[in-house]
């Protein structure tokens, strides 16, 4: 187990190193001088030179990269050009909203995907099954920003059950803030429920043909017990994997959803950074999100052993 974790950590380290290199290179392939681009056309050559020196752009390429890695290790992601604050601080301030949004969306996606996937597998080949498979495909074809806008129009404008946009006034209570996140979470959760549904169904179908499920049925256990205790527990690993993947996809999906609903989260920060060409923020967000993705994958792999005691590393 310990050697497995160690091996995974080493692999993770290598992937993160390449990720950092990719992030670093993206910022350097920009046509033109990043310092000049950031300062705009009104800047004097002296200003540009000063910013270049501050950003370390006058150093050789490899020195710049080592410098960059050193900063990352000390959790220093640089300063935002426009917000005049450390990137880590800007990200941290907005992390709460994006975390809540992601968790609620995952909750919705799982609440839709897993039970319907199970029913679909149990009723395999019947009308219910074919219907849900078709619905899942439909859900996977709908852009989340479009669901968001339709929800705003019909559930916030026409019937004012939910706020149209924003995260409540400053100092709003937790309940109020969460209320603002209901529609965004639905918009993000529905398209992602499709993948979870399909994996649950496939995974359940694989397991339902196993001998122990037949035995459990044959000895007269109630169908629900067979499905939940014998089949689902054994089908859980692929389902967990896909849920982990979904979480990562949703963190990125939040970029679009937060823009639709005018939510001041990490995604919103990224979009405004792109529009203002605030590279340190973009780089920082890329690094943090992909780091989270790699971590979630590791966590899911380690969860396997908890879910399924047969798994030994």
């Amino acid at each position, binding site marked *: 187990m310990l050697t497995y974790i160690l091996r995974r950590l080493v692999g993770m380290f290598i992937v993160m190193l390449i990720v950092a290199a990719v992030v670093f290179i993206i910022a350097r392939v920009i046509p033109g001088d990043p310092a000049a681009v950031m300062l705009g056309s009104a800047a004097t050559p002296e200003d540009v030179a000063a910013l270049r020196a501050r950003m370390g752009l006058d150093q050789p390429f490899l020195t710049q990269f080592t410098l960059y890695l050193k900063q990352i290790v000390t959790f220093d992601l640089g300063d935002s050009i426009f917000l005049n604050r450390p990137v880590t601080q800007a990200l941290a301030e907005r992390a709460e909203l994006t975390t809540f949004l992601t968790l609620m969306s995952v909750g919705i996606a799982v609440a839709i995907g897993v039970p319907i996937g199970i029913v679909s597998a149990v009723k395999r080949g019947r009308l219910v099954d074919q219907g849900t498979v078709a619905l899942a495909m439909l859900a996977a074809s709908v852009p989340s920003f479009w669901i968001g806008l339709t929800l705003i*129009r019909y559930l916030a404008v026409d019937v004012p059950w939910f706020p149209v946009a924003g995260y409540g006034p400053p100092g709003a209570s937790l309940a109020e803030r969460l209320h603002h996140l209901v529609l965004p979470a639905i918009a993000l959760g529905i398209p992602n429920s499709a993948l979870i549904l399909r994996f649950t169904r496939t995974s359940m179908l694989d397991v339902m043909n196993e001998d122990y499920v037949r035995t459990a049925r044959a000895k007269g256990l109630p169908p629900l017990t067979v499905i939940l205790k014998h089949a689902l527990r054994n089908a859980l690993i692929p389902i967990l994997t896909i849920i982990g993947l979904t979480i990562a996809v949703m963190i990125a999906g939040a970029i679009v959803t937060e823009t639709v609903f005018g939510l001041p989260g990490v995604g919103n920060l990224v979009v405004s950074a792109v529009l203002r060409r605030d590279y340190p923020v973009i780089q920082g967000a890329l690094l943090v999100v992909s780091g989270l993705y790699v971590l979630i994958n590791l966590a899911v792999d380690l969860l396997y052993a908890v879910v399924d005691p047969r798994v030994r590393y």
Partner: protein
Amino acid sequence: MTNESPVLAAPKPRKSGFFESRSPTAMLLRQLGRRPLTLIAAGLLAAVVVIALFSPWLTPYDPMKMDILNRLKPPTTAHWLGTDEFGRDVLARIMLGARLSLLVSFLVVIFATVMGTLLGLLGGYVRALDGVLMRFTDALMAFPDILLAIAFLAALGPSLFNVVLALGVVYTPRVARVVRAATLVIRELPFVEAATALGVSTPRIIRVHVLPNLMSPIIVQATFIFAFAILTEAALSFLGVGVPPTTPTWGNMIAGAQQYIRQADWLILFPGFAIVLTVLALQMVGDGLRDALDPRLQKVT
């Protein structure tokens, strides 16, 4: 699980000597003939492509012509899908938007399949490069697709070419992984071994023996990438970092309609329907192709 990763699908000859032709194409068509839904979806796709190609001849309205007197009119018999904030015909704009949305996604598919196939073959054949290439694809796949595309576009600036480049790079690893996995299987098969024993050169083996057997997984993967690319391109246009909004795409039409959400929901609904229909059709075709091309999956459902 196996369902999700199509690997190696040389269509096996079927026993039913019902039709004379046993060419892969004929067999594929026979397989697809048994799937009416796939055929309907393929027909729908063909219709979307025809509309995109011939839109100027299919509608009496000029998608760019403003008509302020008729602005924000709901759907009528004259304007089937209503008019936008400048009085332009929404249907004509959706038809024009199909062009760019399909073109971008199509180019992305070409880029990703060509690059992905090259990298996958390289990884599958040159063992020394395999480890490096696969870690590199791991790293690229650790970025969620839209975030990586946004980062590229932030660096390169928004233009049609850059959108294609960014999304192409994003989807290349997906093809590379599938091609590598399939290549590793195919290169160990008896007929490749036989060719090697006969002294056939590696490039020729790849061209004559390996590539044709890679076609089915690549085509299936390409169909899904097409679908993802349409969705991601729409999202990029919506965020305003995609193709510049001078030309309508489905994504930037929806983005522009956002401020009229209270008065004119048709401006948002109809371009959305266009996206949903096209992506749904692509996914159905992809599913159908995957089942038809991979005989091993036929017993699963």
